[in-house]
């Protein structure tokens, strides 16, 4: 798996530059230099500030200062606030005047209790890598950043249970586990920035879901502060516990609307000692599915990732990385990245090579490469993991992260491209058109497609062409309008395309029960 490691310095000295892509972890990346428009302006037809929320005043600041003990844990100057007010895609921008960075669960509790009493709206923020505008305020909500709660609490090397603060960066957690021979059961392109708490709050899926399942299975317990300041904790839960409602499941995927997650307990598998990566060129989407069926059957227990990418996504990634594609024999309509993880290199390699040889023989695969070492593995992964950055590189990106039955999955990209072409909005090379192109890629193994419409600027015309068209298309195919990124601000009004009235009512009931004042992450979710 793609990983960043600290090398013994003596070893590194002479070969530091061997892998041009090793610093791929997403830190803070900017799509373009253009200023981001305020969400409140762009979407003034959609939302207005609710006057029931109090506006921040001097007294509040004094109170928070008193709780946090130290001015360094509060941010209120314009320039520093910007980082917290803008989202990763540079599509949304809030106007918060205050960021609070507590260090303890008790501080979070006191903050929430006060905000609830005062009706001050709050947005919990992790690594701010969310892709649906959920992690930043819409208006002047206070930002509660978990980034100072960044300690590993404990690790049990027999059971593999990791307990940590919510603000631990995913990659740090995984590096810590690697030292102990374990692996975090979730991995995604934003690992260098996103938080363990953040991935739980969004129920992120990512690159290892195929192998290790969703967080609903691997998270054993959570510690969270409810809107009224109550501290809930199931962090000491064991793997098997059938006593009462499993409340933490509601928090997983609640996107900061139900409670502030402050601690996480998660069951980690032992780290595979042998991983192999192959990158394949495939001529059609039908064939991609055949390769997938074959991979599942022949690689079975060692298959750990099956990612597919269309030709255009690779073209844009090549432009962004300023590199030639690793498959040099030509441009192909589709590419597949297969990863195996196991404990016996010879066994795994033999399986992989047999599978690939068969796939070549049957004409399913046109060309392909197998990484010979870790550097090549990482570099191949970068052709998958850099797509999100590449897709936003020309100015911005409209992201649709959807689940659709496999046979129809790629049809959405073609439909979107056709629709945009009809509206005469697309040109991959010319700056005269606002849209660069529609690309598709994703975790095919999980029936999950990322449709990214790469644009040179965000504009209403593009958005109107795509929405609700995309959502209607998905509904017709019985898909989900958000497979893993969640609802956030972007998809708030579209939940009806994937959930029934009964389901939506139940969600609203729960929200109103735990957050009657609606202070947690308002204007979003449902």
């Amino acid at each position, binding site marked *: 798996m793609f990983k960043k490691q600290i090398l013994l310095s003596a070893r590194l000295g*002479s070969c530091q530059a061997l892998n041009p892509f090793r610093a791929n972890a997403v830190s803070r990346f900017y799509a373009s230099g253009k200023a981001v428009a305020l969400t409140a302006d762009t979407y003034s037809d959609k939302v207005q500030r609710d006057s029931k929320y109090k506006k921040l005043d001097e007294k509040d600041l004094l109170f928070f200062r008193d709780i946090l003990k130290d001015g360094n844990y509060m941010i209120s100057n314009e320039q520093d606030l910007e980082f917290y007010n803008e989202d990763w895609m540079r599509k949304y921008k809030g106007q918060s005047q205050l960021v609070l960075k507590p260090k303890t669960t008790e501080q979070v509790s006191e903050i929430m209790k006060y905000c609830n009493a005062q009706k001050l709206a709050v947005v919990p923020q992790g690594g701010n890598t969310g892709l649906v505008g959920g992690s930043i305020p819409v208006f002047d909500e206070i930002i509660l950043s978990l980034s100072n709660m960044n300690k590993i609490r404990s690790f049990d090397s027999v059971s593999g249970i990791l307990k940590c603060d919510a603000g631990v960066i995913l990659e740090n957690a995984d590096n810590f586990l690697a030292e102990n021979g374990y692996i975090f059961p979730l991995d995604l392109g934003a690992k260098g920035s996103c938080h363990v708490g953040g991935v739980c709050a969004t129920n992120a899926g990512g690159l290892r879901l195929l192998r290790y399942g969703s967080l609903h299975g691997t998270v054993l317990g959570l510690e969270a502060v409810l809107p009224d300041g109550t501290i809930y904790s199931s962090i000491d839960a064991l793997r098997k516990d059938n006593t009462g409602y499993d409340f933490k499941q509601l928090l997983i995927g609640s996107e900061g609307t139900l409670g502030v997650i402050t601690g996480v307990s998660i069951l980690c598998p032992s780290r595979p000692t042998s991983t192999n990566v192959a990158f394949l060129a495939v001529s059609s989407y039908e064939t991609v599915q055949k390769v997938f069926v074959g991979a599942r059957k022949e690689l079975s227990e060692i298959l750990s990732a099956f990612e597919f990418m269309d030709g255009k996504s690779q073209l844009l990634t090549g432009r962004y990385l300023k590199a030639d594609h690793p498959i040099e*024999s030509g441009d192909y309509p589709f590419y597949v990245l297969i990863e195996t993880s196991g404990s016996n290199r010879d066994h795994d390699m033999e399986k992989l090579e047999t599978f690939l040889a068969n796939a070549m023989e049957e004409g399913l695969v046109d060309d392909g490469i197998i990484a010979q070492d*870790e550097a090549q593995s990482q570099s191949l992964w970068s052709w998958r993991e850099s797509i999100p950055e590449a897709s936003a590189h020309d100015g911005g990106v409209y992201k649709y992260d959807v689940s659709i039955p496999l046979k129809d999955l790629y049809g959405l990209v073609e439909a979107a491209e056709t629709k945009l072409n009809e509206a005469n909005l697309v040109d991959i090379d010319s700056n005269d058109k606002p849209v660069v192109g529609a690309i598709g890629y994703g975790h095919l193994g999980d029936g999950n497609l990322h449709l990214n419409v790469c644009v040179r600027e965000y504009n209403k015309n593009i958005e109107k062409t795509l929405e609700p068209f995309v959502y209607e298309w998905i509904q017709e195919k019985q898909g989900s309008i958000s497979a893993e990124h969640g609802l956030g601000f972007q998809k708030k009004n579209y939940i009806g395309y994937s959930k029934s009235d009964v389901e939506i009512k139940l969600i609203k009931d729960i929200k109103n029960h735990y957050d009657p004042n609606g202070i947690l992450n308002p204007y979003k979710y449902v």
Partner: protein
Amino acid sequence: MSSKLKILVPLKRVIDFATKPRINKAGTGVETTGVKFSMNPFCDIALEESLRIREANKDIVEKIHAVSIGPTKAQDILRTALAKGADTSTLVDVGNEEVEPLIVAKLLQKVVEKEQSNLIILGKQAIDDDANQTGQILAGLLNWPQATNASKVEIDGTKVTVTREVDGGSDTLSAELPMIITADLRLNEPRYATLPNVMKAKKKPLEKLKSSDLGVELVSRLETLKVEEPPARAAGVKVGSVDELVSKLKEVKAI
């Protein structure tokens, strides 16, 4: 000597450069169980250069022969080399024995004689022991001209010109074949082995020899006394003011 090139590329199997080496419990070396091994990156660059020479100079290369001195498992990197384009290969199986550069060079000398090679391209060093000696010792044993740390190689008939990066500029050497070149990091960027070639490589020749077949005895002149981690970096301190910074720096005699 015929003007056709018979290139020999020696390859070493080492712990993958991206994995963090751990010292074994006895403190006598690096832990090797459960650790990923790959081709030494500099050897990969040497191999790549031999392939590029063949591609850039039509019909001038008669053969590229890869050789590895190492455990049976070193076959894996030879297969990779064959997949990338080496024509034939030899494994000199020395088991798990660590072999010192002098012995490696002696074994290579025998292979050179056997293969009648007239151009040897090696990595400048292996990233495990960082010895940076094999190419040079081999040049001495064969009494051939050598150009170490090459960043550019040009061939014109039997004349080889090599550019090396040196402090403050570059150094250009040229010599007639036969010759030894050791490869530096910036010489090229190695390719990937493509799937069709990986399959074909399974049928390419891989000869297996023991050191005794080459009449070389595996003796060690050096004894490793101890292997240690570099000392951990001490944590930094936060200072509240410039004055405090200055006084702290003075304290540790940094200014």
